[in-house]
């Protein structure tokens, strides 16, 4: 199957019609139903939009940069008139009255949103097993997890059910499933993409980003969704370069750092060997590689689970059964309405995190946990700043292991949390990173390579990722 940028060009050239293409994609979605990638498929709406864009092309009008493409959204992004479930019973029937900024941008560029994908409930999880709508399966090995929390979006692209998709990454939720499914996934700098219309898990860490089959396609998607949004005060007024132009750009003189701490205990040996081999190839090609100290990474998971759960406990307070969402029936009083609506509506992992978060913010514990967590976060950010004085990019494995078996870690939250050990620091520091396929294990499971760059250095990330993609293809 061709990549998205090619399909877009072919569509512009008149090589196919969307009215035909939409049926192909819907058929493929139907055929892959067992992977459980989608919570909602918008067949009728997609057909209508396909006809409208075909007509627009026939009329000679200028087409947007996503014309000819089908896009899947993680079901925690709002689309006017459609359900936004967040993979949760509590929002099962919730219909959003407005469009997320990313949705408006995709539609404005003639992209067709074909459906919304499965996720860990409220994006809390690393395997897409915590969904009210059942777990997703990895297309490479259906007995294995797709990764998470944006598992459905990764599967949709990996199995060709969508050309591009969007996920959200709070601690690795785009990069880890991209690594598990053998595709490209990227977490932009905090503030690069508007969060307006993304249902919040942890506001200071969440960021929307693309999944794609290759680096150029990810760049194309990021081009569309980036930029300042007056509806999101944390979005930044930073220039948006053409990221697709960066792919294939010159990498001479770029220095790569290898964080020592990312290659120690706990890392699968095949992944370690793979990343080392890629590093060797880069070195042979004349790239400068140096070790870098990121010792504070040891504290990242702890700090992350304090900050993320604190914000989550606050962000999820609005699901109270009063204005929308699940409300328990036949309740005696207000307190019972709250307790039962939330107890019935939320799954186990969400409850665990809400309780953890409420605890770390409670009076008497705030200084010991939340405040300390923020201090650690500041130090981690400083350590990255120092590292980027020496090197342009960091290269690490994306995950400590390849995709694990469905059910393998669901009963051990701490093991599950460690799947994010190489990704969470990036969210804590607010910088950008990308995961790309760098080979396979002997079992044939994809291995993900992570590139990390400083704030608003996405262009550098795409340059290097494009270079590595080429190098590995040779």
């Amino acid at each position: 199957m061709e990549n998205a940028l090619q399909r877009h060009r072919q569509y512009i050239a008149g090589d196919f019609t969307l009215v035909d293409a939409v049926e192909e994609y819907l058929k493929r979605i139907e055929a892959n139903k067992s992977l459980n990638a989608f919570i909602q498929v918008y067949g009728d709406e997609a057909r209508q939009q396909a006809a409208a864009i075909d007509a627009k092309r026939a009329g000679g009008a200028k087409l947007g940069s996503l014309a000819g493409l089908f896009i899947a959204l993680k079901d925690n992004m709002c689309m006017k008139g459609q359900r936004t479930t967040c993979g949760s019973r509590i929002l099962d029937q919730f219909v959003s009255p407005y469009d997320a900024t990313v949705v408006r941008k995709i539609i404005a560029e003639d992209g067709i949103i074909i459906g919304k994908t499965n996720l860990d409930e409220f994006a809390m999880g690393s395997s897409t097993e915590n969904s009210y709508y059942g777990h997703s399966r990895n297309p490479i090995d259906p007995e294995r997890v797709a990764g998470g929390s944006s598992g459905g979006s990764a599967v949709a692209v990996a199995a060709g059910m969508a050309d591009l998709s969007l996920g959200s990454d709070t601690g690795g939720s785009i990069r880890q499933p991209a690594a598990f499914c053998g595709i490209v996934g990227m977490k932009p700098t905090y503030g690069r993409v508007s969060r307006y219309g993304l249902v919040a898990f942890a506001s200071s860490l969440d960021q929307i980003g693309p999944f794609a089959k290759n680096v150029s396609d990810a760049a194309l998607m990021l081009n569309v969704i980036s930029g300042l949004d007056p509806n999101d005060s944390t979005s930044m007024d930073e220039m948006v370069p053409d990221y697709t132009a960066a792919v294939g750009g010159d990498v001479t003189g770029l220095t790569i750092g290898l964080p020592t701490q990312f290659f120690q205990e706990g890392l699968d040996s095949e992944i370690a060997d793979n990343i080392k081999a890629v590093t060797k190839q880069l070195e042979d090609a004349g790239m400068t590689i140096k070790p870098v100290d990121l010792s504070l990474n040891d504290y990242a998971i702890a700090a992350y689970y304090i900050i993320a759960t604190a914000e989550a406990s606050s962000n999820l307070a609005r699901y109270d059964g009063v204005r929308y969402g699940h409300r328990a029936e036949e309740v005696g009083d207000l307190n019972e309405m709250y307790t039962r609506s939330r107890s019935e509506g939320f799954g186990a992992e969400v409850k665990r995190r809400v309780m953890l978060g409420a605890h770390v913010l409670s009076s008497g514990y705030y200084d010991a946990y939340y405040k300390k967590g923020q201090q650690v976060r500041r130090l981690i950010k400083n350590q990255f700043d120092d590292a980027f004085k020496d090197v342009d990019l960091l290269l690490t494995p994306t995950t400590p292991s390849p995709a694990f078996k469905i059910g393998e870690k669901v009963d051990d939250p701490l093991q599950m949390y460690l799947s994010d050990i190489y990704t969470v620091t990036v969210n804590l520091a607010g910088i950008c990173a990308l995961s790309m396929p760098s080979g396979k294990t002997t079992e044939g499971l994809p291995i993900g390579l992570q590139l990390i760059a400083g704030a608003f250095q996405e262009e550098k990330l795409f340059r290097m990722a494009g270079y590595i993609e080429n190098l590995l293809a040779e």
Partner: protein
Amino acid sequence: MDFEVVIGLEVHTQLLTDAKIFSGSSTAFGGEPNSQTDPVVLGMPGVLPVLNKKVVDFAIRLGLATNCTIVPYNRFARKHYFYPDLPKGYQISQYELPICEHGHLDITLEDQPTKRIGITRIHMEEDAGKSIHDAGVDTLVDLNRSGVPLLEIVSEPDMRSAAEAHAYLAGLKQIVTYLEICDGNMEEGSLRCDANVSIRPRGSSEFGTKTELKNMNSFRNVERAINYEIERQTDIVSNGGTIVQETLLWDANVGTVRAMRSKEEAHDYRYFPEPDLLPLQISEEWIAAVRAELPELPEEKKQRFVSEYKLPVYNAEVLTASKALANYFEAVAKSCEDSKLVSNWVMTDVLRVLKEQKIDVEDFTISAQRLAGLLNLILKNTISAKIARDIFEEMLGNEDEALAIVEKKGLAQISDTSELEGIVAQVIADNPKQVEQFRAGKEKIISYFVGQVMKATRGKANPGMVNEILRKQLKA
């Protein structure tokens, strides 16, 4: 035992911005329930707050007017509690870093020296919606008020009586209305006041256990509730009891308080910095720009009235009690050079009518222009003060100028010497007995003759001239 009362107030003022603090919905009072909402106000999944900068302007304005330090680095914080009229499950407020700190307001009680009341802090926050419990079996929620900007003004525990609390609250109201940031209406809830009250043995420097009073929706109720609470606490302590720290609701109908929640039931609000809003930096330039636009404040205006219009301090104080009244006075005084006369009329006649009709000066039917027209007729001796009062009453019910009424009704004062001489001659001729008495030395009887002349002219005779002509003719 002799007790000293310690009172601190927490005052909430609803700001007169057009839009809400974190979204574009209207803040207008009294719309259809839930009509002034949007996804942000409703706390829909995925929405984000965007700060209305006008709210910051207003906060700086109030901070400057109450002698506060404006804090340059601000953060919003989330304050959590569950209630149906709080859509997000938290209120966006300020906690560790409020926008204004260390201010004060001076109050003066009758016959006492001026007293300074400290202002601990002023912070910005959003209002909650309203729960309507008396609409049948269900509780209804109206979120029109949700997201209306508020400034919370927290005083130091510097007040020592309900009267001082009242004076402080009145002073705050005067300032916020002068600044045009709040309409100050306690009945409609745009100005709300909670009081922390405690007592301690006089001379003690430690604070007693305090209670928090809520639900006092008028100035009178603030004073009543605090006095009630002082008495309740004094009774308890005098009888050997101890005060329990709790929140109390004032019931104005019964005139008592009832417990709302105890210290143990107090919320843990789990404050933490609001991650959806970046820290707010307030530059010196921003503060300077607000300062430059600051209107004249009550105290300055009062001083100016004394010097510019040569008014007694008391008059200046009454006339500057509200900005609208002060504006009205100045508008009249601009067109009538006798400012003392204007002051008297505004303070007696105008204020009387406002009180009778229970209206504000903005709704007063006699415009400043028309009142000036009336007063100028007195100054030009066209009418007497007495006739002027009749015309004033008539002007309340129509839109005519005073001069038009005078002309239409022929009320112009008779200042024509020959005409008055004729009338006086007639009165003297008709009252020979009284003429006798006058000539016998009973000079006081002259007022009888004045009365007769006035009667004959239906009050229109120029009283000064009548007096003069009478004396001349009687002594002739």
